[in-house]
């Protein structure tokens, strides 16, 4: 829509002199910044009203509009949400899953990529093909059978179910590491071999330190994914003391059905850590997102 208006403006220039140029410039300016402001408003307003609502008392919430600012800021909703909503359990379990999954992903991903990039062996092409094909299978479609496997392994309702699933389904990490490894010269390995280093030493002392950049990418991208994961914990860890941050928030749907201020406070508690991470690591996040597609 907006692009079309810009064409119309563009065509007019041929007829006018400097006056038309001015009009065109002003119009272009208005369209450009107008659309950016509109986009910003659409992105921010839904979240802004949640922040506003989260500071209101229940009484005030019921009697004032969503856009009117609270008269005095109350943190009661936050305390209720955090304590009664078992947010602490949620954060604890989320952090446990996060740490175990990330360490595992980085180790397994670099190991697999090291072997696939540096050695030639019979099964290499097959393994590469298996990893590539797996990217085609959307995880959610195989849940029906995955559930039976997790259950059969006795991992249902343990924190390990989600950790193991995070490790087993991360194919993109291997690909990102492979791309980076291609650019690390093999002559480095060869020099180390001349000095008597074992292949394991090469992996640990040369490859791992040089893979720091893609590790940060994966840390951020998978980290956000793990923090926001709802479905796996919801399906595999239903026990109340195994709540993660997403499922703890989801549980607000029942008991707090109408107590909006508390729900809104819960929402803010959940998105605050991500917001802080985003503000401090913006550049890495952008690079990571575009890197994960290539």
């Amino acid at each position: 829509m907006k692009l079309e208006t810009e064409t119309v403006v563009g065509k007019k220039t041929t007829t006018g002199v400097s006056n038309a140029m001015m009009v065109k410039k002003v119009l272009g300016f208005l369209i450009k910044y107008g659309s950016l402001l509109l986009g910003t408003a659409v992105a921010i307003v839904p979240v802004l009203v949640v922040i506003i609502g989260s500071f209101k008392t229940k009484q005030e919430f019921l009697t004032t509009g969503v856009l009117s600012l609270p008269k005095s800021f109350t943190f009661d909703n936050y305390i209720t949400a955090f304590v009664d909503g078992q947010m602490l359990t949620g954060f604890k379990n989320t952090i446990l899953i996060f740490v175990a999954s990330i360490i595992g992903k980085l180790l397994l991903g670099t190991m697999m990529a090291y072997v696939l990039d540096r050695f030639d062996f019979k099964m290499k092409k097959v393994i590469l093909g298996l990893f590539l094909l797996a990217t085609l299978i959307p995880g959610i479609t195989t849940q029906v059978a995955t559930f039976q496997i997790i259950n059969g392994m006795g991992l249902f309702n343990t924190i390990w179910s989600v950790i193991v699933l995070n490790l087993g389904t991360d194919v993109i990490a291997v690909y990102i590491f492979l791309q980076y490894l291609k650019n690390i010269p093999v002559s480095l390995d060869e020099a180390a071999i001349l000095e008597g280093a074992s292949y394991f030493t090469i992996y640990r002392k040369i490859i791992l330190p040089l893979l720091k950049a893609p590790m940060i990418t994966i840390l951020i991208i998978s980290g956000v994914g793990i923090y926001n994961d709802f479905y796996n914990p919801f399906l595999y860890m239903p026990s109340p003391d195994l709540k993660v941050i997403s499922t703890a928030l989801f549980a607000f749907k029942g008991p707090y059905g109408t107590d909006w201020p508390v729900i809104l406070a819960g929402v803010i508690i959940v998105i605050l850590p991500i917001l802080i991470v985003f503000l401090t690591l913006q550049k890495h996040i952008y690079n990571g997102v575009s890197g994960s597609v290539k």
Partner: protein
Amino acid sequence: MNKFKLGYNGQRKLIIVLFSALPLFLLLLFSYYPLFRMVQYSFTNWNGISPTRDNVGFDNYIKIFTTPEYFAVFKVSLYYFFATFVQLGIALYFATVLTFKVKFANFWKGILFFPYLLNGVAIGFIFLYFYKGGGTLDTVLTFLGMEDQIRLWLGDRSFNNISMAFTSIWRYMGFNFIIFLGAIQSIDSEIYEAAEIDGANRWQQFLYIIMPSIKPIIFLNIILGISGSLSVFDIPYIMTGGSNGTKTFVIQTIDTAFKFSKVGLASAMALVLLIIVIVVTLLQQFLTREKGAK
């Protein structure tokens, strides 16, 4: 000491086996084995618990395609399918605007991207609050003097899927935006300068420089969007639980398996979806390869 040291050949074999065993095992266990089991289940009437199951041949597949209740949910996917194109259009527009000189470029970029990082459950609540009676949307419409447009955004069957699709655009637009921005920025800036000297306006630059160079990326995003729109799950599941005609195929599948204990039928449904997604993806691979060859 020396005699205990493995030669490089032995070492090589050892490290290949050691480093690839676990990643490969997890890949097979959680990506391929579920697939294999699902094919088996899909020809049975298994309920997920009972030790016995009967072979029912193609009954489950016939049921999916002949019972409107099961197949009609694909209609809901159409809303998300169309939303994909709106989403890509908006993303492309903002990516283009931000490629050229804009004040506060990083600010706009951050704001437009950040919804993508938010927790799905939090987004569910944010938009329940946004759409509820007297909520954010109603307030904004009243403020704009458009009270007559107010309706039951999530209850009205003729509109609730549009509300859901909008939420999906709000959540995922930032992802496409960052991908497009990265692709456009990798175009050599000298090309624009040359075009500008030749008198090309912004629209012409967009049409003749930007579009052709990012065509593959746009195509990839369309395919990701199509398979995404077929496997929509969390937004409708969290917001309405699939009630009032907002059930998607994945919600239907998950409910069939875990609520109604029809694992056999659910497996067949998941496989139907999987096949559609794989066909779409392969089509993309095929088409981009064709183009690349020319």
